[in-house]
């Protein structure tokens, strides 16, 4: 058993894991009840699933330049996925897509309420 075989087996396991996370995201996004929980399901393949698939691909390619490009893909995804999720979540909150009955903690609404109250209580200048 050579190191090539070991790398191929590890790569197959990583690819399977990544594909399973993509499938889990599909199931989650279809079955979950509101926007925030669907986003939660959607982030699974976006970071961990993608990193697993890229590790699998890197173990299979085993050449310097390609592996660095894959590291670049992973870094891009880790930089952009939070930005996209933040924008979607903010737009969802502002357009009333967040279901309050499903939330355990809603710190944003509490904070906004407190700011509005303090504004009201402040004596006029």
């Amino acid at each position, binding site marked *: 058993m050579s190191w090539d075989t070991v790398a191929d087996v590890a790569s197959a396991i990583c690819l399977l894991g990544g594909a399973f996370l993509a499938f889990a995201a599909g199931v989650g996004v279809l079955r979950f009840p509101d926007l925030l929980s*669907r986003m939660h399901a959607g982030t699974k393949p976006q970071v961990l699933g993608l990193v697993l698939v890229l590790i699998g*691909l890197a173990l299979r390619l085993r050449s310097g330049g390609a592996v660095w490009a894959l590291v670049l*893909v992973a870094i891009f995804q880790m930089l952009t996925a939070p930005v996209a999720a933040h924008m979607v979540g903010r737009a969802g909150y502002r357009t009333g897509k967040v279901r309050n009955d499903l939330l355990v903690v809603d710190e944003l609404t509490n904070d906004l309420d407190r700011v509005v109250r303090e504004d009201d209580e402040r004596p006029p200048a």
Partner: protein
Amino acid sequence: MSWIIAACGVLLTAGAVLAVVRAEKGPSILDRTVALDIVVTTMIAAVALYAAVERRADVVPVLVVLSLVGFVGSVTVARFASVEPEGEGRVRTREEVAAEDKARREAEEEEERRRVSGTDEHHGGGAEGEVR
């Protein structure tokens, strides 16, 4: 090895199909955006799977481009998402469209009849669409 590749392909395809179903049903534009984000991520995984199977390093730039394009799409849509009226984000059936058309035509005819019979005539006024 080949059955592992087949299993990966089946899982990826099933995930993408489920996400597309949500994109079709999705009550709001943001749900569709999230679903299509998952489709793009699944596409990246599928291209990576292909590159791994064929040991092709020349497809790697495609992965870089795809990971950037998916981000631009969802940010743009989130930027322009606005409050939609209830039921607006749904694709209407043919019967609903026909009923709406019928109601609008009847309203127009009613307007026309009232105008011809002259019950609420009005004279003069600016031209329609005039900027004052």
